[in-house]
C-alpha cells in the first residue's frame, strides 16, 4: 500500500517539479500506476509528457496505463555519491527503461533489488514502487521474476 514500500534511496533526493503537462504522470505515480501519455487522435506516445503530439499536432492526450514490465535500454552504475546522503546507496544503477506497451517511449529510472553488476542492456525488468512521501511515489525497476523480498 502507498506509504509502506521498501526504500532504496534517501529522503533528500531532489523531489520532482511538475507543470501542467507533466502533473498527471506524477499523480498516477502517487497511486502506483505506471502510465505514458498517449495522443487521443493518432495513438502516438511521448515521454516526457508534452502539450501537443509531435506526430499529428493534436493537443488532446490521455494517460495510458502500462503493464509495468519492460527492458533495460541502457544504464550506468553510479559510483560517486553526488549527495552526501547517497554515500550508503552507491553504487546504484540509473537506467533507461523501455516499458512494454509504451510505444517506444523510454523512461529514466533505476534498477534495484539486485547487484548492480548483474544489470545488462536488454535485461527484463518490472516496476517496483518506492514511496518517497505521502504524495510522491517513484517507479523503480527490478529484474523480472524475482520473488518478493528476494534481493
Amino acid at each position, binding site marked *: 500500500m502507498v506509504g509502506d514500500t521498501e526504500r532504496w*534511496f*534517501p*529522503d*533528500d*533526493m*531532489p*523531489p*520532482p*517539479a*511538475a*507543470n501542467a*503537462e*507533466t*502533473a498527471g504522470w*506524477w499523480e498516477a505515480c*502517487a497511486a502506483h500506476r505506471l502510465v505514458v501519455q498517449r495522443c487521443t487522435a493518432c495513438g502516438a506516445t*511521448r*515521454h*516526457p509528457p508534452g502539450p501537443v503530439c*509531435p506526430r499529428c499536432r493534436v493537443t488532446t492526450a490521455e494517460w495510458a496505463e502500462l503493464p509495468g514490465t519492460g527492458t533495460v*535500454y*541502457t*544504464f*550506468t*552504475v*553510479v*559510483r*560517486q555519491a*553526488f*549527495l*552526501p*546522503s*547517497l554515500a550508503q*546507496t552507491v553504487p*546504484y544503477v*540509473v*537506467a*533507461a527503461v523501455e516499458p512494454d506497451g509504451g510505444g*517506444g*517511449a*523510454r*523512461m*529514466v*529510472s*533505476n534498477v534495484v533489488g539486485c547487484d548492480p553488476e548483474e544489470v545488462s*542492456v536488454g535485461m527484463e525488468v518490472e516496476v517496483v514502487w518506492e514511496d*518517497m*512521501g*505521502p*504524495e*510522491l511515489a*517513484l517507479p*523503480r525497476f527490478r529484474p523480472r521474476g524475482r520473488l518478493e523480498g528476494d534481493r
Partner: protein
Amino acid sequence: MGRRVVSSGGEASATASRRASIVGVGETRYAKWGGITEASEYQLAVQSVLAALDDAGLSVDDVDGLASFADDRNEATFLAADLGIPELRYATMSWLPGGGGACAAVSNAATAVETGQAEVVVVYRSLCQGQFRRFGRGPGNAAPKPRPETRPAPRPGVRRARSLLEAHVAFTMPFGMFGPPIAYAMVTKRHMHRFGTTTEQLGAVAVTTRAHAARNPRAIMGERTMTMDDYLASRMVSDPFRLFDCCLESDGACAVVVTTPERAADTRRGGVTILASAQGTLRGFGHGQYSNVSMPDDDYASAGARQVAARLWGRAGVGPGDVDVAEIYDHFTGLVLLSLEDFGFCGRGEGGPFAASGAMSWPDGSIPTNTHGGSLSEAYVHGLNHVVEGVRQLRGDSTCQVEGAQTCLVTSAAGVPTSALVLART
C-alpha cells in the same frame, strides 16, 4: 547531397566576399575550480573582451555588438554599459543549451555582421565554477545542504516547476541522474553495446588530448602527463566514465571578435574567415539525452549532430576529408567519438577504433583534434576556447601547430542541440 533549395549552402551563407572574419581572440588565465579568487566571473568576462580587442588592434569604441550562449549570467546589456560601448546595435544569446551554443554564438555574430546589423561583434564566455554552482546540475536542483541530524528531512512531494527545463529534469534528477556525466555515460554505454566500443578507446581520447595539453602553457593540466595506465587507474564516476573521461571544472574566460572582411583587412593580425556555420537538432532529440531518452535508437547513441554536419559541410563546400584540424567539444571522451562519427571523419560506430588508431594525434594523425588540450585538459569554458584554438591554428600560432593548416572544424557540445563552424585561413 539532395539538399532542398531553401536549406542549401549558397542561399544560407554569405557570398564569399561578404563572409565575416574572426580578427581577435582573448583569454584570461585558466585555473581549476575555485582557482581564481582575485577576479569575479564578470570581471573575467570584461578582461577577455578587452584582451580579444587588443589582439585585433581594436578598442571598445569599435564594438557595436555582443553575443553569448547558455543562459549567460554576464548579460550583454550590463557588459555594454560597463565597458562604455558607444552604441549597442546587436545583442543575442543562443537558445542552444549548455555547451551546444558556442559556435552558434559566433554564427549569430557573423550573421549580424554579414547582414549589416552590426560591424564589430564580440562573442564572450566566462565561467567560474568556483564562484557559482556547478554547471549542468539542473535548475533549482543544486545538491541540498545536509540537514542537522536532529531535524528530520521533510517528506518530499511534487513541487511546481518554474521552468520547462525543471519539469523535464524531474524525470531524471529524482532517479539520481544528477548531471551530464551520468546521462552521457548511459549514451556511451549504449554505443559500447551497439558497436563494441571499448574502455581503452575512450582512454585514447583522454590520453591524446592530454599529450596535446602538455605543449600548451595555458592548459590547466599541461604539467600532468597521462598514460593509458593512469587513465585506467582513475576512479570510476559513472560506468563507463572514469574521472579522466570527464572534462575539467575550471575558472576562466575567453572571447573572440567578429567583423567584416573590409575591417578585418585593417586589423593587427588580419582575419580568419568563418567559412560556414550551422546549428540545430534532430526531430525528437529534444533538449538532448540529458532529459530525453525516447529518441530513435540511431539518434540516442549519437552526437545528434548529423543534420548540422550535413548543412555545415554543404555550406562550406568542403568535407571531413578536406579540413586540416578539428576542435571537437569534449565534455566527455565518449561524445568525442560520437561527434567524429556524426561529422563524417569515420563511419557510424567506428569512432572508437578511429580514435585508438591515433587519428586524433598531433602531428601525425589523419585529423589532429583538440590541439589545445580541449575541455578535458586545457579548460572548460563551454567550448569557446575551441574556437580560439581554431583561430590560432589558422594563424599558425598553436602550440600543436598543424603545418600549413588552411581549414579547421570547430564543434560545440554533442548530446544537446548543437552548432559548428568551419574556419579558413583568409
